[in-house]
């Protein structure tokens, strides 16, 4: 293989026949050869070429088939840190030339492409297209220097790896590109990408090999490689550190010598790696020992069985493994409120739909923002970015507009499902190349330029045409999911049969299928029943996915049961989990809403306090009053016991803080609602005590104080909140004026705790010996409270308990 031009395909063919050895660490080797700290490594090597030649000669002698040109930081962003961005072409091209001239025919030279040091949208600041351009520029300079291929390495963010791969492909479409990412011991990258999601995404995007470098030693890396193996259609790379740094005889060093490092060669190969190298702490000795061990291992390359997998940045969704519900809610069709939101530029409702569907068990979220009067492309781009930042869900991009499809697929940091490609000439010519460029999986809609074929034969012919066209772009049948194209039985009583026939025929051929479930019942009564019944029939024919509303519990429970029956739920774990959830009160919003409607008016009031439902407390109180309950009864016998139960649950840690505060807020709103009725009835509730609360002088942190004040009010205290940064004199003057019983002080800083002491002492100097103080805040503890003569409260309920104990004295 040495010394001649190879395309990406030839590179992949070569890797089917032989292991390949990369080089080891470069940075530490350059330091050994005199590179000082703090300089630009690329410029230093440019000025001291003998150093890199020496290192590469050693690696080639050790057995490296590929050496990386010293262009790790050779991108515009990193060079700009040294004021060298404008010399990128000169430096990077020269570095590759130097490496090529030195390596000659002894080894291939790959341009080394590493992170820019900036985070990229949708989560970071750097525009994705700009990032692609930065990598394209660097790759072009490397290509100009004669690079045989590219090694995108040390990537911590899948989105940056995508940008780099697209940039390289745009500069050098035919040259081989390998990608390695850095996974922590948690088996995720720093930005949360899983190895499987990264592989699925980059493999679909056209990487010639994928794997890991840096961060861990070979032992942990073997586990990552093993996790990748079932999904890897391309060779896997292991380029680990020489173990982990440790202290030895007072010196910090890497834990593995060359022999021990090399002993992991077989373990890495058994895990599935076929390209090996070293990262931090490795030397030519490590590579020589590794290459020696690898030579003794019989070569065997078996790419994984082809799986139909889509991904987000942090998880994968395998189609065919279990039934997948594609959440249909993010679609403005027939949703006036959502349409109005989209027109106003808000994406809040879309986020709500995403969270609801995700919680209800959708495996993929369909995203459609096709609506007149909005910029579909821009709205789609913003929504995809928002969903990717805030959820880890796999997305199905649903649009008929090629520009919208491209904008979404380009930005989406995973392998998306595309809804859809039809057999219409325009879709095949315009959308298919876009889908292929970004590696999207396809939903094939059997629709032709003549319309919808009426029978299964016509639809299968359309499917075959789409598959044939897609094959020209490198797609295989496993990358395609056929839409059974369900029509309404209300207008065609054979519609269900036609769709079921398509599902059966696809299933016989091993093709995955999907359907827009609710279409079948359009125009009919009892739509939910009809939908579920059709789903049952389709599941029996091995339907793979449905675009449906996962908020219908009956539908989701049916899917879980069907997977159990069809052998897709190993050990019945999902069925058992579902059963447990049913016993404990259900999981979806619809279930909980239905439950509250079944409550009596009085129970509904209690439920509102327990759930902290401020929005419904007034209407529920009104309903309870209308049912003949007195305001006194509702306050004393319903709401107060409810808020007491909330406090108890908080103390038992069955509720967390927002539930405690929400309960208090609902209680407060309910009390205010009842107050005029109580006054007119002559039974205004008495306050337990007057409580002044403040954040002390010099401190501006008041969220904790606000929480305590809210909770105290609902336990019958009259709370006077003086705010934050309040001087001792103001607090004590007010206490005197109001004849307060208790004072609560909050401080978050060690530097402001002293103001608590000052306030207590001022009160004593003014003769307020019976005035009690409760103190709290992040830096305050019991010892400090005792030292100033106050009572310590660790949290809001402790403050309530302390206040009640003090007024009882």
């Amino acid at each position: 293989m040495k010394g001649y031009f190879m395309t990406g395909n030839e590179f992949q063919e070569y890797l089917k026949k032989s292991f390949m050895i990369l080089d080891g660490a470069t940075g530490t080797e350059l330091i050994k050869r005199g590179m000082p700290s703090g300089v630009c490594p690329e410029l230093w090597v440019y000025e001291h070429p003998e150093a890199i030649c020496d290192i590469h000669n050693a690696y080639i002698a050790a057995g490296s088939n590929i050496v990386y040109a010293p262009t790790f930081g050779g991108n515009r962003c990193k060079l700009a840190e040294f004021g060298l961005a404008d010399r990128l072409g000169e430096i990077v091209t020269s570095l590759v030339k130097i490496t090529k001239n030195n390596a000659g025919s002894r080894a291939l030279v790959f341009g080394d492409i590493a992170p820019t040091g900036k985070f990229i949208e949708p989560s970071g600041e750097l525009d994705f297209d700009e990032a692609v351009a930065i990598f394209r520029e660097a790759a072009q300079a490397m290509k100009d220097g004669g690079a045989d291929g590219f090694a995108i390495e040390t990537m911590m963010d899948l989105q940056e790896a995508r940008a780099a791969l697209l940039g390289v492909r745009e500069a050098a479409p035919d040259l081989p590109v390998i990608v390695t990412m850095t996974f922590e011991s948690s088996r995720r990258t720093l930005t949360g990408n899983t190895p499987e999601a990264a592989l699925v995404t980059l493999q679909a995007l056209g990487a010639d090999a994928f794997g890991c470098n840096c961060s861990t030693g070979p032992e942990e890396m073997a586990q990552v490689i093993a996790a990748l193996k079932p999904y890897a259609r391309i060779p896997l790379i292991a380029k680990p550190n020489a173990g982990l740094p440790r202290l030895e005889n007072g010196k910090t060093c890497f834990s593995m010598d060359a022999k021990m490092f090399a002993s992991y060669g077989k373990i890495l190969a058994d895990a599935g790696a076929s390209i090996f190298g070293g990262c931090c702490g490795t030397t030519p000795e490590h590579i020589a020992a590794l290459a020696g061990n690898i030579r003794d291992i019989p070569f065997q390359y078996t790419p994984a069985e082809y799986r139909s997998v889509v991904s987000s940045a942090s998880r994968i969704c395998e189609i065919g493994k279990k039934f997948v519900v594609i959440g249909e809610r993010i679609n403005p069709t027939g949703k006036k409120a959502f349409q109005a939101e989209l027109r106003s530029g808000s994406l809040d409702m879309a986020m709500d739909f995403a969270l609801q569907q995700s919680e209800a068990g959708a495996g993929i979220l369909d995203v459609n923002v096709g609506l007149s009067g909005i910029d579909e492309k821009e709205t789609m781009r913003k929504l995809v970015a928002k969903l990717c930042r805030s959820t880890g869900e796999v997305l199905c991009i649903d649009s008929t507009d090629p520009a919208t499809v491209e904008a979404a697929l380009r930005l989406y940091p995973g392998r998306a499902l595309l809804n859809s490609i039809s057999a219409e000439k325009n879709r095949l010519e315009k959308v298919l190349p876009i889908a292929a460029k970004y590696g999207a999986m396809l939903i094939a809609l059997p629709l032709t330029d003549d319309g919808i074929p009426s029978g299964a034969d016509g639809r299968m012919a359309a499917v075959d045409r789409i598959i044939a066209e897609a094959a020209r772009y490198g797609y295989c049948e496993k990358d395609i999911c056929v839409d059974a194209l369900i029509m309404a039985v209300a207008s065609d009583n054979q519609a269900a049969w036609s769709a079921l026939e398509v599902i059966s025929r696809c299933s016989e051929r091993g093709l995955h299928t999907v359907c827009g479930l609710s279409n079948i019942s359009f125009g009919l009564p009892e739509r939910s029943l009809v939908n579920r019944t059709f789903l049952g029939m389709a599941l029996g024919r091995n339907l793979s996915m449905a675009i449906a509303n996962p908020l219908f519990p009956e539908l989701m429970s049916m899917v879980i049961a069907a997977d159990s029956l069809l052998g897709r739920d190993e050990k019945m774990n999902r069925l058992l989990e579902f059963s447990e959830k049913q016993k404990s009160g259900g999981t979806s919003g619809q279930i909980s809403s239905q439950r509250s409607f079944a409550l009596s008016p009085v129970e509904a009031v209690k439920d509102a306090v327990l759930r902290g439902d401020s929005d419904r407390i007034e209407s529920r109180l009104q309903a309870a009053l209308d049912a003949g309950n007195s305001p006194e009864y509702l306050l004393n016998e319903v709401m107060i016991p409810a808020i007491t139960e909330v406090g108890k649950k908080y103390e038992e840690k069955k509720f967390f803080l927002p539930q405690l505060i929400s309960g208090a807020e609902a209680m407060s709103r309910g009390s205010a609602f009842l107050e005029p009725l109580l006054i007119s009835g002559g039974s205004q509730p008495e306050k337990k005590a007057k409580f002044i609360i403040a954040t002390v002088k010099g401190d501006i942190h008041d969220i904790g104080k606000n929480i305590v004040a809210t909770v105290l009010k609902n336990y019958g205290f009259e709370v006077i909140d003086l705010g934050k940064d309040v001087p001792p004199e103001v607090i004590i003057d007010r206490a005197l004026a109001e004849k307060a019983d208790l004072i609560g002080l909050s401080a978050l800083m060690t530097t402001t705790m002293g103001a608590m002491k000052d306030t207590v002492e001022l009160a004593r100097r003014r003769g307020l010996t019976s005035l009690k103080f409760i103190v709290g805040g992040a830096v305050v503890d019991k010892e400090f409270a005792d030292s100033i003569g106050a009572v310590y409260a660790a949290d809001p309920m402790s403050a309530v308990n302390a206040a009640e104990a003090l007024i009882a004295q």
Partner: protein
Amino acid sequence: MNHYSRLQINFPEKAIFWRLGGNSARTVLDAESHRRFKKIALTAFEACEPKGRWEIFPVKEVTADGIYLSSGSFIAGGNFAAKCRGINALWCGAVTVGSRVTALRDEQTMVSAGAIYDAVAAECADEAADVLQELARQELLRRGMLLDERRYSPGYGDMPLEVQKFFFSTLNLAELAMVLSENLYIIPEKSVTAFAGVKTI
């Protein structure tokens, strides 16, 4: 100076839940409450603008009272110094999530929402500090240096809050729109400054 005008952090849902008193074994959230919590938390997360910078400074001597840097600066704090024996350099990092999230917190009419905003901002600042430190660890490893995973901040143990001034002057934190008040608290409120030891491999 290693500067990040936008750090990418993951949504630290578990840490936020824990910070708000949640207990994974005991706390029960019905679907509606969970959705409400998550929506508020995600909105707060979107309002966080994590950024940070770090630098390392050669160490001259580590004593029982603190650390002398080659530049002549002294970092007081015996507890920290005791953990730093044998270090060659001191890593100094600073992150902030900006003031937008706390401004939105203060605008919340429901205290429960304010509490969630506050917890999200605090945990995101911690998460940003973790990310900054990991970025530094990887960068330093390539330079043949090992960054300690533990970090220390002014105000903890016996390290006085006055040490904050060192961060503001050496890291020029004004460029992150950070301000040190007279009482030595940092504005924006949800910010972290920290040291960690660096050893040469």
